[in-house]
């Protein structure tokens, strides 16, 4: 056990104590003024909570590494994961807020007046959140593995226990303020290394302004090393793959059940619009920094590590080789490390960079705490989405309508623990890197919920049969494409598994429209309810007339 381990561990424990303290404090306060709380959280705080809920291990740990390895092609993640907030805030959030239900399956079940649609939506929520949480667990495995200097698999198992415990006991209530704290910690942890690297390399502390110079220098450096050009577009995938991935991430964002739920915690449609704006500003702080992180890390690796004698590599390399996420092989036997001889996993770049850049123990520990905050806050949201879909929408609404409150709570807890353990088992041998696994969750959300929600809100003619057909077709097409592309080598226009959402979303949209037209239109009251979503809360649509309160 070295000092680094102790420093990292104490920062992580201190941050955990903070989250638990906040959860306990808010729980006590909420019972006293329960009804006032119904008036809502301010859009500013809700923006931070959305940002923490949203920014997962994929954003924190995986994204900068993905960009570093893919160059320009990795920017699809940056634009995709931010651009989706426009679809969400313009097309869905205010309207869903006015409709006022608790969960996404509940909206779908009531809007389409169908228990079948409700069950399918609940199953989709479970599938999406499950796939997504595989990425989170695999991410916490990387962090814990590095911290304890053990294999990432062992780290994942420890992560499973932590997250199952956290979500089952801590995550039920008062989660908003915990997430606000998690946002503050994760953004500080992300910005400090970037600012210091920027200062070290360019003399300018503002990374967003300074790293352009570094990107500009890559052209020459890459040529000297004979590696692929960093800023050259579409070297690692086709242009259609880039566009399809970007679409998948955008539409998936607008259909993610655990993020939509956060828009129900504000008071009005107006507050929902402001929440969306604040959320993207807070998210943007990290997303604008990720490409800077990537550029600085790549620059340091090229300048300080590549070209060194393999026997004299810095100490941090050995620690990462122990986790199994960094491999160094002297392919040509000259004793000198070439860029091509280093296999660096996307998922360790952010975690390793503070060490690579010699930023000191405190920063390394802080980054570990930030990564855990990102993984925990998202895993907490996901596990609650899984348990409410199962315990509320399926078990209570369909299977046992007269189950007692206690019984339902027990089922909710059991489903959280089961889901975490199952996801952990898959994460032991992750079928891809974190960003890729998470992109599959987005492909499924883009293919099932996005069409059902957008049509449900904007097209009153869409009916139950259409929604059911749409969700099933979307699920089948996106899952089928992911499997065929990943394991069967199948592709259309060079689009690989991560871009599957474009096919699923289009197929689901068509299926919904065609089947809706072929079957009976929805009831008069539902059509009026949908029409009513055009107007602010004060206006009500009834029998072809508009009333104002």
């Amino acid at each position, binding site marked *: 056990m070295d000092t680094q381990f102790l420093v990292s561990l104490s920062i992580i424990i201190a941050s955990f104590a903070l989250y638990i303290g906040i959860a306990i404090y808010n729980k006590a306060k909420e019972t006293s003024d329960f009804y006032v709380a119904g008036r809502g959280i301010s859009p500013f705080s809700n923006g931070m909570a959305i940002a923490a809920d949203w920014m997962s291990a994929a954003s924190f740990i995986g994204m900068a590494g993905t960009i570093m390895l893919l160059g320009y092609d990795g920017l699809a993640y940056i634009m995709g994961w931010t651009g989706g907030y426009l679809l969400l805030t313009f097309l869905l959030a205010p309207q869903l807020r006015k409709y006022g239900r608790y969960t996404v399956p509940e909206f779908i079940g009531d809007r389409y007046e169908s228990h079948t649609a409700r069950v399918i939506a609940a199953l989709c929520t479970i599938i999406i959140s499950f796939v997504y949480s595989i990425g989170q667990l695999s991410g916490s495995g990387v962090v814990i593995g590095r911290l304890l200097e053990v294999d990432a698999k062992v780290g994942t198992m420890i992560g499973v226990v932590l997250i199952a415990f956290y979500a089952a006991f801590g995550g039920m209530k008062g989660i908003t303020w915990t997430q606000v704290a998690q946002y503050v910690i994760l953004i500080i942890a992300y910005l400090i290394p970037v600012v210091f690297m920027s200062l070290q390399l360019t003399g300018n502390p503002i990374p967003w302004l300074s790293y352009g110079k570094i990107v500009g220098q890559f052209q020459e450096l890459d040529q000297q090393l004979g590696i692929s050009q960093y800023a050259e577009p579409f070297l690692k995938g086709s242009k259609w793959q880039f566009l399809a991935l*970007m679409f998948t991430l955008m539409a998936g964002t607008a259909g993610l059940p655990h993020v939509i739920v956060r828009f129900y915690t504000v*008071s009005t449609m107006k507050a929902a619009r402001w929440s969306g704006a604040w959320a*993207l500003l807070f998210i943007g702080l990290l997303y604008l920094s990720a490409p800077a992180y990537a550029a600085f890390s790549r620059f340091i690796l090229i300048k300080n590590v590549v070209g060194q004698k393999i026997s004299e590599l810095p100490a941090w390399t050995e620690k990462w080789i122990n986790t199994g996420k960094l491999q160094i092989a002297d392919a040509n036997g000259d004793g000198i490390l070439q860029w091509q001889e280093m296999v660096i996993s996307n998922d360790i770049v952010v975690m390793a960079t503070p060490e690579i850049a010699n930023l000191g123990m405190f920063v390394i520990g802080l980054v570990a705490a930030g990564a855990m905050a990102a993984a925990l806050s998202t895993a907490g949201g996901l596990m609650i989405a899984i348990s409410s879909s199962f315990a509320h929408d399926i078990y209570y609404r369909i299977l046992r309508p007269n189950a007692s409150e206690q019984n339902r709570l027990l089922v909710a807890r059991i489903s959280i623990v089961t889901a975490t353990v199952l996801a952990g088992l898959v994460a032991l041998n992750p079928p891809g890197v974190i960003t890729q696994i998470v992109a599959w969750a987005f492909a499924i959300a883009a293919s099932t919920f996005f069409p059902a929600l957008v049509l449900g809100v904007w097209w009153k003619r869409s009916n139950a049969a259409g929604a059911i057909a749409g969700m099933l077709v979307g699920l089948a097409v996106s899952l089928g494409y992911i499997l065929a592309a990943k394991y069967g080598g199948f592709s259309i226009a060079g689009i690989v598994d991560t871009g599957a959402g474009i096919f699923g979303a289009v197929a689901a949209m068509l299926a919904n429209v065609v089947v809706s037209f072929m079957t009976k239109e929805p009831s008069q009251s539902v059509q009026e309810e949908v029409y009513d979503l055009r107007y602010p809360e004060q206006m009500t649509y009834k029998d072809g007339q508009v009333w104002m309160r």
Partner: protein
Amino acid sequence: MKQIDKKVADAYFRERVRLIVIFLIIWFIVSFGIVMFAESFKNMTFNSFPFHYFMGAQGAVATFIILLFINAKVSDNIDKKYGISEEKNEQLSAGKALDH
């Protein structure tokens, strides 16, 4: 509760939709549009970045954030113009969904 002319309500909806359509067109151009023609921008530079890289890493995201804030602000003004009071809205929606 008093009845209002449906034309007024529809005018409100049209203004909001027009705004959304304009914003989504800009959204499409700065993301999909630039990517579509990325090769033709790569010799232009902006703040020492190749332009297509700048748009992907910073330009598009900054535009998205600005659009969301403009939308929130302009929508508030539209609400004001049609006499919508936020306090009344809060009362009406209270209890329709609670904290999670």
